[in-house]
């Protein structure tokens, strides 16, 4: 087992366990802290995939900005511990369970039985160049410059819209 796969399994296990803990925690602040753990291990996984820029952005945006926002909301709403909901078993839940189980089976099928095994083991050498700042910049301001610019218009409209909705009458 190489150091890379060792790192992968460590990060993956950490990501999955913190994600499960996040759902199980009853205290919202503890949930938020578990989510930070997931975000960090995801950033590590991106690094293993040679996506340096994405890894840095993951930390800066998600672990930094988004998490602060989530914590602010929790504090402003002054949330207490979650009250335990009574579980009900009905048709919708049964259908949901069957669908979820089907999805898991499908995932395993794709992972182990389909596709080219050689392709799974190797990595396209060009992939490493894609994840750098230069690679991302080249894509965003080259081929995808128009969608990139139009996204900024879209965000502007969303900001104006948020102001319109929040503004009081008059």
């Amino acid at each position, binding site marked *: 087992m190489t150091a890379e796969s060792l790192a992968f399994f460590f990060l993956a296990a950490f990501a999955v366990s913190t994600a499960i803990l996040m759902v199980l925690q009853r205290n919202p602040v503890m949930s938020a802290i578990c989510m930070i753990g997931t975000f960090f291990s995801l950033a590590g996984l991106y690094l293993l995939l040679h996506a340096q820029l994405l890894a840095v952005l993951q930390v800066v945006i998600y672990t930094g900005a988004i998490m602060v926002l989530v914590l602010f909301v929790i504090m402003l709403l002054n949330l207490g511990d979650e009250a335990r909901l009574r579980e009900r078993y009905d048709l919708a839940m049964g259908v949901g369970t069957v669908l979820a189980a089907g999805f898991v089976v499908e995932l395993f099928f794709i992972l182990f039985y389909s596709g080219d095994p050689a392709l799974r083991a190797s990595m396209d050498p060009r992939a490493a160049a894609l994840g750098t700042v230069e690679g991302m910049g080249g894509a965003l301001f080259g081929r995808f410059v128009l969608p990139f610019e*139009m996204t900024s218009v879209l965000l502007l409209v969303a900001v104006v819209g948020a102001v319109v909705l929040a503004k009081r*009458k*008059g």
Partner: protein
Amino acid sequence: MASHMLKDAALFLPEIALTVTILAAIVADLIFRRVRAVVPGIVLAGLIATGFLVLGQQGSSVAIFSSMIAVDAFAVYFKLVILLAAVVVVVFSFGSAELQTGGRKLGEYYALLAAAVLGMMLMAGANNLLMMYLALELSSISSYLLSGYTREAADSSEASLKYVIYGALSSGLMLYGISILYGLTGSLDLATINHIVPVVISAGGPPLYGLLIAGILTLAGFGYKISAVPFHFWAPDVYEGAPITITAFLAVASKAGGFAMLIRFLKVTFFDATGVMAAAGTWEAVRGLRWVDLVAILSVLSMTVGNLTAIWQNNLKRLLAYSSIAHAGYMLMGVAVLNDEGIAAVMLYFVIYLFMNLGAFYAVMLIADKTGSEDIDDYKGLGSRAPFLAVALAIFLISLSGLPPTAGFIGKLYLFAALINKGWIWLAIVGALNSVIALYYYVRVIRNMFLRTDEQQSAPLSLSGMQMTMVLALLVPTLLFGLYFGPLVQLAQASVRIFGAP
């Protein structure tokens, strides 16, 4: 690279001008807080300038910015329809009493309207699934905000919320379809997908089912934008709750953008390049996919459900909403024909639809501003209270139902001719039967206006010179194109050329 981009930017000038207009409107709203006419003036000037820049693009047929957007005769035609509708709606909005209630400032309203127009113009040209999705979202988000703009009215908020929920659902479905399509073909570019689709189909098995599912899911996004049954559930509530200016805008411009995108998607992605008929202006869909039948089913459902539900409506705005669903069905018939004749008929219909539908909405708006009601029962005796307006509304409604000598007749004539030439007799019969049903509920309004008398003997309604001019500006083309339609037909037939399609 840089010089390449500058060349592309020169072909993108109309959209750049419109973006500048949006920014100018937002800034001007902050500076000129007291003067009401500044922001609408800026937006109106910007829209007209954009229109002239679009006119300058006639004759070009290229795809710019790495094939993200196509600039071709087809896009130019639809952009002009959208801009014309937007100009009319801005003028409507300036005179609307409904928007003034509640004392809200309207600066952002006009800026958002311009943003919606930008989104729709991008929809008309989008040549890449990523761009299509972005354009759809830009126009949708602006429309959500606009339909909830008179937030003080409860039904306006409800309309906006319903619109957001249905919009989010259908754009999610569409995105899922696009992701499957990308997974199967490895590309988002329509022309590249077209090369790979036959390979996927000949392989058969799971990829073929994947392609079918992807197509149906993507169709859900388009169907929502053009409010075709069964993706229409948002339309009646939104049309009723939104300010009537926005209802008119959604019914015409939004639908034009959706149709342009749908036609381009079907025609570029799924035409069979090896088909023998390709040269003769007819394009075959790739074998193994029954797209045409799917479009025909959507068309029949939209017409029938739209018309049958409209019969029971008493609110005129809601009635026009169902009628616009039915009109989406009529126009889908032209798409189902899958040839240039059918597309030209749809494009011709759009121009006519623009005048008659905006006219009908404007008349309803003027009456609602004066009487405060959109109920059909309150239209009793309108023929004597406001003869000019009542006659105008009657003509718009007759044109919507498709009777001669109005323009609506010419539009339907070309649609049915295209159907019959291709041998779609049963679809033409369904369409004709639907027109008869439609006639019933339009005539009900006209009967109330002229044959029933108002018990309360209310005072006559008077129109200002400006309002009179506006009604005439929409009324004259509705009648004129019914008698003299040659140039319009030629323009539509000359504009069917789509970049990347035969």
